[in-house]
């Protein structure tokens, strides 16, 4: 069964392509020249601080707002071209908007029935979709009575209707508790094994960095870097930090031995000295500190986190 899935055959091929995409709201350049290639079957993260342009980029990819300049292709079809490809593309796409708003007066099941009809898929599967996101118990309750997290799950369920091959999830874990977040990523992993292409946005790098295949860091409307987590870390070549625990009286001694080495900042803290150094001088610093003998009480190395990479770009 699984090997007949059309999605699996698409693995690796360019599924979402953006070229020189811009969106200007008057003087605000919300998206300012984005090039992006997202491959079929990929779980792709889009990360950036508030106002970086992530949601705006999503809306252009979905054809919800016109593109000021540039071009976006979804599975080969240009977005916004209209015509016959419009419905075909929409049918294979699932979208979870940020702060999803559903209809308060409908029940969870009725909500899915409504969207299933619009997507042209049978509502027979709806209960299963609700089960997948853990909402079966609330299927017949009105959305009005749903908690924030339940609404978010229902929004996600709606995006899963009709087995989409491409998912756009804008801050999907917003409002979910930690357990729900884990469940959510388990679903994403399963979808990926089925060959679904997923793009998710987030502010929280720690949450997505171990879970996505690749990510793009966005700031000020531009994609600042794209790659795997390891690749980005390497490419950035950010300095390491040593935390050297010494008695306050020995702070100056540490400064002295490090004086000849190519180290960056040396910060004195209550009970330790933090030393920044480039990756290639790592061993030299360790050797120098070792020469201090009994004075160094403890030593730990801090690798740069992707968070540093992220903020390095965002600042």
């Amino acid at each position: 069964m699984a090997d007949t899935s059309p999605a699996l055959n698409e693995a690796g091929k360019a599924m979402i392509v953006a070229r020189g995409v811009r969106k200007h709201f008057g003087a605000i350049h919300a998206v300012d020249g984005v090039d992006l290639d997202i491959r079929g079957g990929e779980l792709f993260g889009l990360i950036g601080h508030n106002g970086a342009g992530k949601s705006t980029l999503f809306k252009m990819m979905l054809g919800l707002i016109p593109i000021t300049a540039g071009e976006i292709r979804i599975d080969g079809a240009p977005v916004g071209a209209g015509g016959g490809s419009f419905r075909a593309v929409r049918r294979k796409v699932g979208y979870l908007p940020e702060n999803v708003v559903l209809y308060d007066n409908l029940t969870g099941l009725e909500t899915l029935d409504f969207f299933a009809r619009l997507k042209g898929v049978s509502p027979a599967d709806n209960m299963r979709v609700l089960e997948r996101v853990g909402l079966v118990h609330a299927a017949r309750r009105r959305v009005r009575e749903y908690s924030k997290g339940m609404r978010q799950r229902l929004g996600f369920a709606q995006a899963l209707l009709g087995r989409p091959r491409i998912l756009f999830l804008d801050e999907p874990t917003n409002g979910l508790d930690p357990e729900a977040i884990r469940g959510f990523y388990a679903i994403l992993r399963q979808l990926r094994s089925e060959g679904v292409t997923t793009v998710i946005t987030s502010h929280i790098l720690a949450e997505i960095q171990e879970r996505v295949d690749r990510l793009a860091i966005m700031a000020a409307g531009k994609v600042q870097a794209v790659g795997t987590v390891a690749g980005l870390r390497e490419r950035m070549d950010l300095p390491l930090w040593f935390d050297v625990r010494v008695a306050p009286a020995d702070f100056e001694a540490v400064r002295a031995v490090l004086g000849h080495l190519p180290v960056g900042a040396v910060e004195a803290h209550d009970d330790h000295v933090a030393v920044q150094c480039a990756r290639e001088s790592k061993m030299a610093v360790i050797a120098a500190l070792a020469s201090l003998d009994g004075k160094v009480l403890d030593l730990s190395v801090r690798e740069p986190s992707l968070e540093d990479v992220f903020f390095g770009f965002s600042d």
Partner: protein
Amino acid sequence: MEFSQITTIAGKEFWDRIRNRWVLAVALVFTVFALSIAYFGSAQQGAVGFRSIEVTIASLVSLVIYLIPLIALLLGFDAIVGERERGSLDLLLSMPITRFELLLGKYLGLAGALTFSTIAGFGLVGIVLSAQLDLNALFHYFGFMLSSVLLGCAFLSLAVMLSVFASDRTRASGLAIALWFFFVLIFDLLVLGVLVVTGGQWGGEALPYVMLLNPADVFRILNIFTLEDVRTLYGLATVFPATLAQPWLLGLVMAGWIAAPLAIAAWRFRR
């Protein structure tokens, strides 16, 4: 254009109004008003009881001409801007549905709800009255119901149009009230004013055509001119050319009043 997308949207709109009892409430308002007009309307003349159908319809017309435009405008003003403001429009538009299908579906669903309450409300009264009515009177009453439906649909179309143009719900509701004032109160005053100021020299000839520019007036003419007895009451018969007073022609004008605002809305909503 995919018909199923339109019916999905229309169905949701319609059932929403059924479920929140909007249809029931409006139908009840129509029933109560119509019954009291039919029964108590002649109380000031000293007699309580059902009056002649012509006079009843004439009184109903002068009530409905205020009520239905207001109800239709209130029903439709947030059709699009409401979804936009609440934040549910993006998700809707991400579905395999065109903007035109969405707009038309919204309109048809709301029009269905309004039509249903109008026919249910007045129809019930029609049934109550039917014992006293001959075939001809029933025919007139039916004409009144039909023209009421058209009146509602025309103002609903205007409401949906401004719900596309307005940037937020508050503004849309303000515009809806302004539109109501204009068509129901100000328009006739303006026309009269021009007639009086110019001593009837100016616009006297054009008057019938000017009145076609107001769906409320079209509704009034439709009902007056199909009722022989009250025609002359209004003194309108003299100025209104009989050729223009054809019900089918006036019906076409109403259809235009339904189609034109919707077309403008669709054009605007494309982006």
